[in-house]
């Protein structure tokens, strides 16, 4: 979408597609920023920046986990449901103090990841199927635990959602820290290398003595915990647990951020920087439409189009 000018030059199609896949997301972000600078009043303000940064955090954090799962050639559709479960857990365990509540929420995320990972690694269920079942059951479970929206007054938790350090919201700091951690894990640890190898060729990885099952389970647990973190932060910011709506369509947004960021769904590759940019792009797109008072319906249709375009560009070149 940002590269109409380029398309007119008509270079070799595959070269253009590869360029789009690898850098299109940055060009897209830049273009959206420029458009907003030109058209949106008050866009170039610290407040706007802060609001956008805060709003992008849930997608970003979930997308980090999703990127690693996709790196193994898998997919996690349960992330939105896990966010809802995390919200319910917060509400249920807030009585024991905010720390216990947060830990309970993160534990729930880890358990969900453990179940998904075990289904994939030990039983051999396709990732999309295993996490689809968890997506259905998880949302129901969240609503069973907490049938309706529950507002809370716990000051610590509310501070987590809206407090700031040196003018930077806590949630943004946490997102940045988590991004750095995931980058480090992917780049520098044996676990990270093993993720890429398993995504690139699972049979070869098994024969090379890699702990394939352990790595797969680890990946889904990571995704589950990160989704729970996103759920906790979103709940803290809302000041309420909302098991019905929280995390709705999150799986789609997270997958989109990862794919727009240049990670192919076939696995063997993880691009965290691209994923961050992908999340920012989706957020900016929504924000732009909203700031110009375009209705929600437009936002959704526009996102759908961007997603299809992104996947189309990112797909591995076919048999031609």
């Amino acid at each position: 979408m940002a590269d109409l000018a380029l398309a007119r030059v008509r270079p070799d199609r595959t070269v253009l597609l590869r360029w789009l896949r690898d850098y299109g997301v940055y060009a897209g972000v830049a273009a959206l920023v420029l458009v907003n600078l030109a058209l949106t009043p008050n866009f170039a303000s610290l407040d706007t920046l802060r609001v956008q940064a805060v709003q992008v955090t849930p997608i970003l954090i979930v997308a980090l986990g999703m990127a690693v799962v996709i790196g193994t050639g898998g997919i996690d559709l349960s992330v939105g449901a896990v966010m809802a479960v995390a919200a319910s857990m917060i509400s249920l365990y807030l009585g024991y103090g905010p720390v216990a509540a947060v830990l309970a929420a993160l534990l729930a995320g880890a358990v969900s990841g453990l179940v998904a990972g075990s289904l994939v690694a030990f039983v051999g269920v396709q990732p999309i199927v295993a996490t689809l079942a968890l997506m259905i059951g998880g949302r129901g479970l969240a609503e069973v635990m907490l049938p309706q929206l529950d507002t809370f007054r716990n000051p610590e938790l509310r501070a987590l959602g809206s407090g700031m350090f040196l003018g930077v919201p806590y949630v943004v700091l946490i997102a940045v820290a988590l991004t750095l951690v995931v980058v480090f894990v992917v780049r520098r640890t044996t676990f990270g290398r093993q993720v890429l190898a398993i995504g690139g060729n699972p049979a070869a990885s098994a024969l090379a003595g890699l702990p394939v099952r352990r790595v797969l389970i680890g990946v889904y647990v990571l995704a589950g915990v990160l989704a729970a973190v996103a759920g906790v932060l979103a709940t803290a910011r809302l000041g309420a647990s909302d098991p019905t709506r929280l995390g709705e369509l999150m799986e789609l947004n997270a997958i989109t951020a990862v794919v727009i960021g240049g990670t192919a769904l076939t696995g063997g590759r993880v691009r965290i920087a691209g994923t961050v940019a992908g999340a920012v792009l989706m957020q900016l797109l929504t924000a732009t439409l909203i700031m110009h008072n375009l209705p929600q319906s437009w936002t959704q249709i526009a996102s759908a189009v961007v997603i299809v375009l992104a996947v189309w560009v990112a797909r591995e070149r076919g048999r031609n």
Partner: protein
Amino acid sequence: MARTPVTAAAVDVSRGGAAPAGASGAERISALAQRHGALVVLVAVVLVTSLSFDTFFTGYNLNRLAVNAAFLAIVALGMTFVIITGGIDLSVGSVFALGGVLAAWASQYGTLPALLVPVAAAGAIGLANGLLVARTRLAPFIVTLASMLGARGLMLAVSGEGNETYLVPQGSAFLELAQGGLFGIGYPVYLTLALFGLGGLLLRRTGFGQSVYAVGGNEDAAALMGVRVARTKLTVYLMSGLLAGFAGALNAAYLGSGVTILGFAMELDAIAAVVIGGTLLTGGLGYVSGSLVGVLLLKVIQNVINLIGSLSSSYQQVVSGLFLIAVVVAQTYLSRRRRIG
């Protein structure tokens, strides 16, 4: 058998080393479990429920349950075709809602528009899904997730961002289509049965049905054998869209209005029903009748949860999720054993 003359034609190569004869018994049992497992569970649940609740096995309750199940069943019918080709259609919930809103809006112009407008719109979305999946070879789940979003956007756009609820005019023939009945059974039930009959015939007894199985079973081989893979895929997504839109319209007639929040997560129920009914999520094997049983099973469980009263309706989702995991795990084990055996 051991010393037949060595004219090649007499040598029986049917039992290669990879398929020992003893496996056929287990094979038959697992095939039976695959095909009729859901039916056995359904009968058991119905029996237990009838004995436990006086209000369950009454004509009134059963008809209400059947009519209620009809909408999901029609959606699941299309989903069955899609899943047998190895695909998935996550957009049906949104398309269902869109169909409902469009039908309610168009019903002011008469019954025919109330049916045609939603079906046309839903068909367009299904066609778009099919084109993207078949021609550009994008992953079905992501294409249909995107169109789920797109269809929802459309639905919001035609309903004033969800603030406007169109009502079907009283006395319209359109209302009668879903609310009326014959012999104490609602029209939607007859319609659903007819559609499933047609669907079953299409799947089992026509060349198109064979190509649906072939595409899901081994796409490359199917292409080599002359099956038009792209056209088959396009058709199943188109069918899925059309049926979802029609179900939405029918639902609007049943409720008398286009309710915008309906259809949410319906795709998940439809998938659950299809898989519980014995269709392999990996494609290549499946039954239309199984999907009907799967839908009934989900709806009976929902009915039970309502009858118990103290349980929130969200339990139904938990139960479907658990069912789905159990069925998928069982399918994986069964198909793995069969591959080795």
